[in-house]
């Protein structure tokens, strides 16, 4: 990266942005855009970059092609992927050995490498360009889209796509009141979970008198199964920062914090770098760009406590204390960090702000539904073909997300449920697939929008086990301050755990419901108030599954170990010994090309045989009368 030269006035910033945009346009080299977010790196993208670099160097091709290392492109299933401009070619699952071919064939000879193209899981057709891939077709990547255009570690790259132009517009032409009115009119609502109108929040914060005000970016993305905030901070930290600076100007805040999870090392690194670069360029600090506006941002790292996503607990954590929530009111807008007025917004919310300022409230409010404007990023994960980050307009149906964008369920299995909203959300069944998604509709259906995690489950997922999973998570993460949450989540977990172990009894479900309502009504903070949602929603839609566990002592999905046994299906077994070799207990008997038998007395139900079998000949027996195996002990 070039050395950063401090910009001292608004005029100068305007000139620098123009120059960067020009520079980008005039660079006619081919660009190999390699995704290198945490997922990409885990799949080996750094080695791919090395191999591309050496191929380019070897051929002295620097004048013809450049590599841009970006954050996540969203299509995590296809990692590491490379987008090649100008033709918008999309190569997926690239390996280091492909580096030379990509440079020699595609860059030099304009040849498409067929084996690296994406094959649609439903139609079997190959897609050459990014735009042809079904995963991207129904998306509107207004917030995430820039991730694929910039190197997140270079502030000039952000400027070259018009970055910080919104800040310039605000400082040059708008008053704080204008900014707030615009955000309000756009209808932006908090993307962290509850969906509180952002403009209203800012208005309250502006009105409160105080010499020092703070703003906080909540990047404590604790919902398991959600990672859009990580992706934004890793891939486009300046966008979030720009949103924060604009927000600080509107509210009159002089200091800001980014509270980011310690579990996200790359996000911490990139946002720290971004803050330092912005400071050097003169976008943070005293008298920003020659105006009277002072603002600076610091990093506060979390230390692995889910409850710190709650705003009062988050504030306690920044102050260096135990992250326990407190009673509201007073709300942080009145008394927040160190007792001063504080405005907290989520990463994605801040990321929406520059765009609204740039394109206007009218443009923004045309996207989405009546009550929920704009787009929302969902992390589409679990039992789904096209896993990844999906940005869609509000109001789209679950079916469109899961089947059109997500490409349906792998291995031809049946869709069973989708879990939204993390531990505060709920599971929605197939009957709800046509539900248009916005804040209100999801709440009505017994779930919530939450931060946007969307975990798809198929017929092999046990809903009682899922409820147990969330209760275990919540009882572990409950800070313990209020009794109803601390004890309630523990007792609910015990009841559900008993049910999954085959010890459930009549009346358990009624007790569970009663307890769930009490925890909901009497807990202090959002964690406890919503802790019952996973239980209540699974009871509402999958009661028969609970009853099968209690009355018939069977797990229809074949998950709960006490209620199943692993068996070999003789008709499918080829006698390949794979399961026998994988078994840590020596519980499988059989000779090559002979049907294998699992000795139930020795079996510890670890699942290694099922994983090892390539012929689907090992299964969990649950419905049928269990085939009595020689020497087997029946549970």
């Amino acid at each position: 990266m070039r050395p950063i030269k401090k910009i001292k006035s608004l005029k100068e910033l305007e000139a620098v942005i123009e120059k960067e945009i020009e520079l980008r346009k005039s660079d006619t080299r081919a660009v190999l855009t390699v995704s290198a977010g945490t997922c990409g790196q885990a799949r080996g993208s750094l080695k791919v970059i090395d191999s591309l670099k050496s191929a380019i160097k070897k051929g002295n091709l620097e004048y013809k092609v450049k590599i841009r290392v970006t954050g996540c492109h969203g299509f995590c299933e296809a990692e590491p992927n490379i987008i090649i401009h100008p033709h918008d070619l999309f190569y997926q699952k690239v390996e280091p050995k492909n580096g030379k071919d990509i440079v020699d064939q595609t860059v030099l000879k304009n040849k498409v490498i067929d084996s690296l193209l994406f094959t649609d899981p439903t139609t079997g057709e190959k897609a050459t360009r990014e735009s042809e891939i079904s995963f991207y077709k129904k998306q509107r990547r207004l917030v995430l889209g820039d991730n694929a255009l910039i190197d997140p570690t270079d502030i000039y790259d952000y400027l070259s796509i018009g970055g910080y132009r919104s800040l310039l517009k605000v400082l040059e032409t708008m008053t704080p009141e204008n900014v707030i009115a615009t955000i309000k009119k756009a209808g932006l609502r908090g993307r962290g979970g509850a969906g509180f109108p952002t403009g209203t929040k800012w208005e309250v914060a502006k009105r409160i008198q105080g010499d020092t005000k703070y703003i906080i970016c909540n990047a404590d993305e604790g919902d398991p199964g959600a990672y859009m905030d990580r992706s934004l901070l890793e891939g486009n930290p300046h966008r979030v920062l720009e949103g924060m600076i604009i927000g600080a100007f509107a509210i009159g805040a002089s200091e800001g914090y980014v509270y980011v999870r310690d579990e996200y090392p790359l996000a911490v690194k990139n946002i720290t770098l971004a803050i330092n670069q912005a400071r050097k360029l003169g976008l943070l600090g005293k008298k920003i760009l020659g105006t009277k506006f002072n603002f600076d941002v610091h990093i506060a790292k979390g230390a692995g406590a889910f409850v710190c996503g709650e705003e009062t607990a988050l504030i306690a954590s920044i102050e260096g204390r135990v992250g326990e929530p407190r009673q509201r009111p007073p709300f942080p807008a009145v008394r927040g960090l160190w007792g001063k007025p504080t405005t907290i917004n989520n990463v994605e919310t801040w990321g929406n702000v520059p765009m609204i300022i740039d394109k206007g409230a009218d443009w923004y409010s045309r996207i989405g539904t009546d009550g929920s404007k704009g787009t929302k990023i969902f992390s589409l994960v679990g039992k789904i073909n096209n896993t990844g980050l999906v940005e869609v307009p509000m109001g789209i149906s679950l079916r469109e997300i899961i089947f059109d964008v997500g490409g349906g369920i792998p291995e031809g299995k049946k869709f069973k449920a989708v879990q939204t909203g993390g531990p505060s959300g709920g599971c929605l069944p197939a009957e709800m697939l046509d539900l248009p998604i916005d804040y209100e509709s999801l709440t009505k259906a017994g779930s919530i929008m939450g931060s946007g995690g969307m975990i798809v489950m198929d017929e092999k997922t046990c809903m009682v086990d899922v409820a147990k999973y969330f209760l275990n998570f919540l009882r572990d993460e409950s800070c313990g301050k209020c009794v109803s949450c601390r004890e309630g989540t523990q007792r609910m977990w015990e009841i559900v755990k008993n049910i999954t172990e085959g010890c459930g009894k009549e009346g358990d479900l009624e007790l569970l419901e009663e307890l769930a309502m009490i925890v909901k009504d009497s807990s202090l903070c959002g964690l406890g108030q919503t802790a019952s949602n996973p239980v209540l929603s699974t009871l509402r839609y999958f009661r028969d599954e609970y009853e099968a566990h209690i009355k018939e002592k069977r797990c229809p999905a074949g998950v709960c170990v006490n209620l199943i046994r692993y068996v070999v299906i003789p008709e499918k077994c080829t006698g390949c010994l794979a399961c026998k070799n994988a078994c840590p207990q020596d519980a499988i008997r059989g000779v090559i090309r002979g049907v294998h038998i699992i000795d139930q007395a020795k079996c510890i139900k670890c699942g290694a045989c099922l994983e090892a079998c390539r012929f689907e000949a090992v299964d969990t027996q649950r419905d049928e009368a269990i085939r009595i195996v020689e020497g087997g002990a029946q549970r």
Partner: protein
Amino acid sequence: MPVEAEHMKVKCLIAKHNNEKKALIAILQDIQAEYNYLPQNSLRAVSKMLDVPLIDVIGVATFYRAFSLKPRGRHVATVCLGTACHVRGGPKVVEEFERRLGVKTGETTPDNKFTLETVACLGCCAIGPVVVMDGNYYAHTNIRKVNTILKKYAKEETKNETH
């Protein structure tokens, strides 16, 4: 390490944060990065130097999941148990680690080589179940891959021992 040396180290780390009470969590994170856990003496030193009651320091150190009051092994295996990893078989991976290492989650092997930990979510949901070993991410893990991962690090250990 002698107590005075540890004291000096802690003093330096606290000075890095301008001796500010609000930086308590960050200071503890730095100490843990240095020692791999929070030694008792260092907590006492932090309490004294920051003028924060020891009970509050211990409170923070035990409240947050990232801190460990026990020494950890030379290699830390962290298995993600986020929802996406859970439905794809994360618990089976943890069980396999427990069997192979002969310890429960949160424990360290007697030879101090490995510590087994779980985490609520690493945010790499698309490539789950995920295991992180000393900061290296392993994607799409399963029961079989556990052995491969452990072998790799056990091999490194023997290499180090012979040097």
